[in-house]
């Protein structure tokens, strides 16, 4: 069961300052998150404060603007960021986590290089009122001739969202007289709430190229009563940049020439690509090596898990209702899996209002027995129920926490336990490790939801656990099979029946997406998908009632389809292209330049089996040669046969790849060009009359 179950615990609307803020325009809900110290910790911290009698009261205002450099004024472009609309000349972020007057000073200097770059003069600094305030704002414009226009306009406090004492606000202002060639700069202080500690993140990668950046963090001073210790990890830092702790225990870093962050299709999670340093305050587990750290985490989680699943007798009784003693092991596992998936899964229901929840009087289960008796649970609980039932059925089964690879990749050495955020069950059967997550709705037996596949995780046991890697399904496990029986009219229209069979994760995501939709919406959804597959306008009508509620059977949809004018005119001949349902491949990877690796969610395949009955009197003049491009992890092939007045076209496209380094992009692009070229190959027809399509 993946991270989505923890959605409510992620304070998406509660972002607070982190060093990642320092773009000219700051978007509230990206990049940042913070860890709110539990209340118990706050209390402890409050005690410390009273004993320590700190004297410092308010954060210091920024010392002021830095001198204007004539060289900076002369800049008209940046060789390392050719074409940039603006660049950050200098950015400084200084954080002081003293616990009482914790604050973070941010200073940004931006060179405007084009008219478009002037938009960075509009500044918005979001903040959560109860946790922080933004104070000491100063700003100015340096015109291209070096003259200075100080910002003396109004700083607006904008309400983004306000509800029942929670206020998500933004300080916003715009700088005057901003011209191409000029420089804008501003500073502000995030003044954090007293007696709270927040994790901190230096996100170096910005929308703009950064010429130079300096960061510092003065950590909270740990004490016996408040044993919070800071540790930090980093990734993708520019050469020469590395956070270092000084003799004064302040962590500092300077970085230069940080490229602007670019977004591309099919790229890995942005969090993994950005240059960043993450600071984490820890109360427990301080000063441990990764092995020790994970051992403790594993033991702790295993303890919690065993408490939850340890209802052997109740589970044995339950299993007895599900399986027969004579069932082969695989059948037992399947029966248990099917039964668990039939239990009401609250994770996938529409979010209720508090009144509805109160009225429903549904309690959170504290163990698997309660789930079984009540007949509902959330996705995570149902997966653990499966574990308990599998064990009760006599299987060697383990609970595993794996890393959902939707937003992050996982590296144990960074010791970020929150990234082990999805639970699955490992069952050892006939010497093979099988992974299950019945709490992820519509996941067929033997598969995991895509973000849990091919990822690292911790198999829990009393000794702390063992690292595992979940299986990555083959492309054939998640397939789209299209079977069409069509007729070509003598006016060139193509019309007939189409049956599409979605299996594996292809069926799962469609069922999941439409789980709360009605028949009309589902019909529209499927028909739109077909229309998007055909490269020209088409008329599509769903004719059957697909099975939306099951998990195991493929999702089968049948359509009447008409593609007006599909055959093209070539004077006395007519042409029909090989590929009909190939529009999805038409525009992918059309750009030659690529910055990031290419990332697919899961391996998949598409197969087509199409027959086209020709109009009476027509015959086939020529068909393209068959193609077979087998690049091991990527395969494309098609074949066209003339069956006495009926064309038979088969096509296969499969992808058994998850991530490709940027250096392979050219080869991948070339592959797709070959696919498109193949799909565009023409079948030459000879109409019965001279020019039948007119």
């Amino acid at each position, binding site marked *: 069961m993946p991270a989505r179950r923890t959605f409510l615990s992620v304070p*998406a*609307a509660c972002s607070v300052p982190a060093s990642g803020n320092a773009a000219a325009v700051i978007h509230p809900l990206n990049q940042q998150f913070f860890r709110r110290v539990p209340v118990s910790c706050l209390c402890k911290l409050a005690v410390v404060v009273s004993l320590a009698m700190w004297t410092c009261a308010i954060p210091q205002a920024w010392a002021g603007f830095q001198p204007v450099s004539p060289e900076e004024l002369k800049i008209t472009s940046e060789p390392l*960021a*050719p*074409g*940039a609309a603006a660049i950050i000349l200098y950015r400084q972020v200084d954080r002081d986590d003293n616990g009482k007057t914790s604050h973070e000073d941010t200073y940004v200097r931006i060179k405007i290089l*084009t*008219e*478009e770059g002037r*938009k960075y003069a*509009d500044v918005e600094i979001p903040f959560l009122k109860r946790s922080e305030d933004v104070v000491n704002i100063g700003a100015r414009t340096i015109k291209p001739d070096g003259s200075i226009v100080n910002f003396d*306009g109004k700083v607006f406090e*904008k*309400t983004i*969202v*306000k*509800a029942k*004492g929670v206020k*998500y606000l933004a300080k916003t*202002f715009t700088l*005057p*007289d*901003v*011209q191409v060639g000029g420089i804008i700069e501003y500073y502000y202080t995030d003044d954090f709430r007293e007696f709270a500690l927040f994790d901190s993140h230096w996100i170096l990668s910005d*929308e703009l190229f950064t010429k130079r950046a300096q960061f510092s963090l003065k950590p909270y001073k740990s004490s016996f009563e408040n044993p919070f210790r800071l540790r930090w990890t980093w990734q993708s830092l520019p050469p020469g940049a590395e956070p270092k702790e000084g003799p004064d225990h302040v962590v500092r870093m300077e970085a230069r020439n940080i490229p602007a962050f670019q977004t591309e299709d099919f790229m890995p999670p942005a969090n993994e690509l950005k240059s960043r340093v993450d600071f984490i305050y820890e109360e427990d587990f301080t000063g441990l090596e990764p092995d020790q750290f994970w051992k403790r985490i594993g033991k702790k989680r295993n303890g919690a898990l065993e408490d939850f699943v340890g209802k052997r007798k109740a589970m044995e009784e339950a299993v007895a209702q599900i399986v027969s003693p004579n069932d082969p092991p695989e059948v037992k596992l399947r029966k248990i899996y099917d039964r668990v998936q039939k239990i009401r899964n609250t994770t996938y229901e529409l*979010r*209720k*209002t508090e*009144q*509805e929840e*109160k*009225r429903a009087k549904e309690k959170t289960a504290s163990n698997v027995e309660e789930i079984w008796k009540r007949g509902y649970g959330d996705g995570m609980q149902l997966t653990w129920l499966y574990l308990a039932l599998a064990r009760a059925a006599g299987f060697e089964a383990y609970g595993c926490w794996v890393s959902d690879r939707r937003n992050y990749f996982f590296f144990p050495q960074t010791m970020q336990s929150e990234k082990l955020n999805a639970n699955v069950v490992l069952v050892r059967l006939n010497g093979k490790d099988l992974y299950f997550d019945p709490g992820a709705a519509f996941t067929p037996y033997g598969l995991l939801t895509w973000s849990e596949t091919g990822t690292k995780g911790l198999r829990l046991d009393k000794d702390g656990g063992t690292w595992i890697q979940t299986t990555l399904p083959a492309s054939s496990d998640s397939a789209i099979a299209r079977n069409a029986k069509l007729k070509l009219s003598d006016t*060139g229209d193509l019309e007939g029946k189409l049956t599409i069979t979605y299996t594996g994760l292809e069926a799962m995501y469609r069922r999941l997406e439409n789980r709360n939709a*009605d*028949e*009309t919406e589902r019909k529209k959804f499927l028909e739109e998908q077909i229309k998007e597959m055909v490269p*020209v*306008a088409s*008329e599509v009508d769903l004719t059957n009632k697909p099975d939306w509620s099951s998990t195991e059977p493929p999702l089968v949809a049948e359509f009447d389809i008409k593609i*007006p004018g599909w055959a*093209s*005119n*070539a*004077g*006395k001949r007519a042409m029909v292209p090989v590929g009909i349902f190939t529009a999805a491949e038409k*525009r992918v990877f*059309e*750009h*030659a*330049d690529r910055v990031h690796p290419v990332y697919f969610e899961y391996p998949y395949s598409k197969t087509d089996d199409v027959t086209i009955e020709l109009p009476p009197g027509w015959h086939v003049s*020529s068909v*393209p040669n068959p193609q077979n491009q087998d690049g091991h992890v990527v395969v494309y092939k098609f074949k066209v046969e003339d069956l006495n007045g009926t064309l038979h076209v088969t096509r296969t496209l499969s992808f058994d790849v998850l991530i490709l380094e940027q250096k392979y992009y050219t080869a991948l692009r070339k592959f797709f*060009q070959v696919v498109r*070229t193949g*799909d*565009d*190959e023409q079948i*030459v027809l000879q109409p019965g009359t001279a*020019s039948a*399509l007119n």
Partner: protein
Amino acid sequence: MTSRLCCSPERRAPSTRQLLSLLGVAVFLLACVSPAAAGGDAPQWMRALVGVPLPPYDEKTDAVLLYSDTNVTVLSADKIRTHVREAYKILRPNGRHRGTAVVYINPQRKITSFHGWCIPTQGKDFEVKDKDAVEAAPNVQNGELVSDVKYKILRIPAPDPGNIVGYEYEVEEQPFFLQDSWEFQEADPVHESHYTLQLPPGWEYKASWLNYPEAKSRLSSNNQWEWTVGDVKGIRTEEEMPPIAGVAGRMLVSFFATGGSIKNGFADWRSMGSWYSKLVSGRTEASPPIKQEVGILAGSKTTALLKMQAIAAFVQHDIRYVAIELGIGGWQPHPAPEVYEHRYGDCKDKATLVRSMLSEIGIDSYHVVIYTERGAITPATPAHHGFNHAITAIKLPDGLSDPSLVATFQHPKWGKILFFDPTDELTPFGQIRGQLQANYGLLVTPDGGELVQLPQQPSAMNSVQRIARLTLEPGGRLKGDVDEVRLGDRAATERWRLRLVTKDADRIKPIESLLGSSLSSFRITHATVTNLQHTDQPFGFAYSFEADSYAKSAGNLLLVRPRVLGSKSSGILETKEPRKFPIEFDGPARDTDSFEIAIPPGYEVDDLPPPVDSDYSFASYHSKTEAKGNAIRYTRTFEVKELSVPVERAEELKKFYRIIASDERNTAVLKPVVAK
């Protein structure tokens, strides 16, 4: 009223999706805070709706507005109280969004009560109150720095199919003008809707109906009138349809105080023009720095046209678009000296500054308020505040005539007028973009104002002229050079696209996208852009490319698609449901392609696709493929002549697009030359 003058052409108003996204954040935040109050019974007016007989609705109807009652009480010229009750029956899961009630507020419009209820098909009613509401600001962006408009959002429990959700609120407003709009037609069908107007003694009203047959009012008590409509059809959006304001039924009602008032109910466009003229009054006066700037810009210019062009370019490019709209600031521009000093402003600020500067060279000009999409305001529209943009009308000096000044019209009193949009940085002085053409705007003049139609420019002024000289190799590779010249909006679109490019390496991407839409495989070997910044000059792309396997082999034949690049067809009318609304083009256009493909040595033309000549009053398409020596020459012309296609001619347009689609896929056949 939410209408304001703040629109920048490339900057769109927040979409419904953005609003829903905002609501999502708000609702999430609401879920994080303290528990909601316990439910209470729905009021009697909602209870009465249970079991009300309804006509059959089709399976795509999300919900039906069972009952709507808007009660407007004009307390004085400075205070209007509006009480609203609405209840929906949810018919489909898609109708659940009706359980989120949204009321806009601002410092002049305060909400005094807000309640919501749900009557489920089973079980007790739910109730939510003011304190359960979330307050959220619209997701302003792209230069919209700050606005005082906010939303109060109430999430009503259980908005599930079969259930009835309803809400009731009251707002008190200090109006800028004495006018209201009863917008009774919406996306969902309406079973019954009422509007009641209570005026102070002696006051009068004027009601006008738009896009719907008039319902007669009923005097229900002393100076109180009522209107009722029922069984109003829902509006399902269609691609390229007119703006909602141009098709949805509504009633505009203006109020007039006894003996007149300083506030205006806009009896006619002239009175609205007077109101706006007063708002602008004095704000165009030039400060010494403005005078100095005009001296610098225009001093060395020898003609009035050159001076105007210099001023126009300054305001278009050197004044940054920033909108700060608080209170009347949504309508009233900042004084020109302030705009000049800050070097930023919104559309009305820019219009004000350009007027101020033009005045310094002795040229009169006026504000024009307008809606950014054609069709929202028509000659049949009564005077009201349904605008969202401001531009400038420049009174051209007598005798001034220049081919670059196209967006002009002859006003019987003010003479030759040139329309100019200083917010639109990509349309050159002398022209206006497509959506403003043939659109109606309020020309604000010293003696009031009048609704005028802006001119429609010749279609050739918005065009792509593409010429390709290409060579086909025996193996099927096509290579050669392409020159594209773009004018009007066709140029502005590419300039805008390139403006957003943040690194030089990405400048090739628009060309890659163009080629990618037509070629399965290609490699660009050279590309240049001309006149990217010079908006008064034609924009140009020049590029060379190679496309492997462009021609397909079929036995000993080579199959070549003569239409190498670009697409003019459209699938917007390929829908199951018949079209309900007219189709609106962005603007007039005329595109031409000329592709010459040298055929490989040893081959000759065997067969060519037939020519296409499709001519309708709204658009035309002509294409021809010819064999010329050792080359195939494909030429075509696509022209949009009328800006709107009425719904009864939608089938003709559909056929027109199919003809184009067919032509674009046609193939020429080459065969080996047979030795004689």
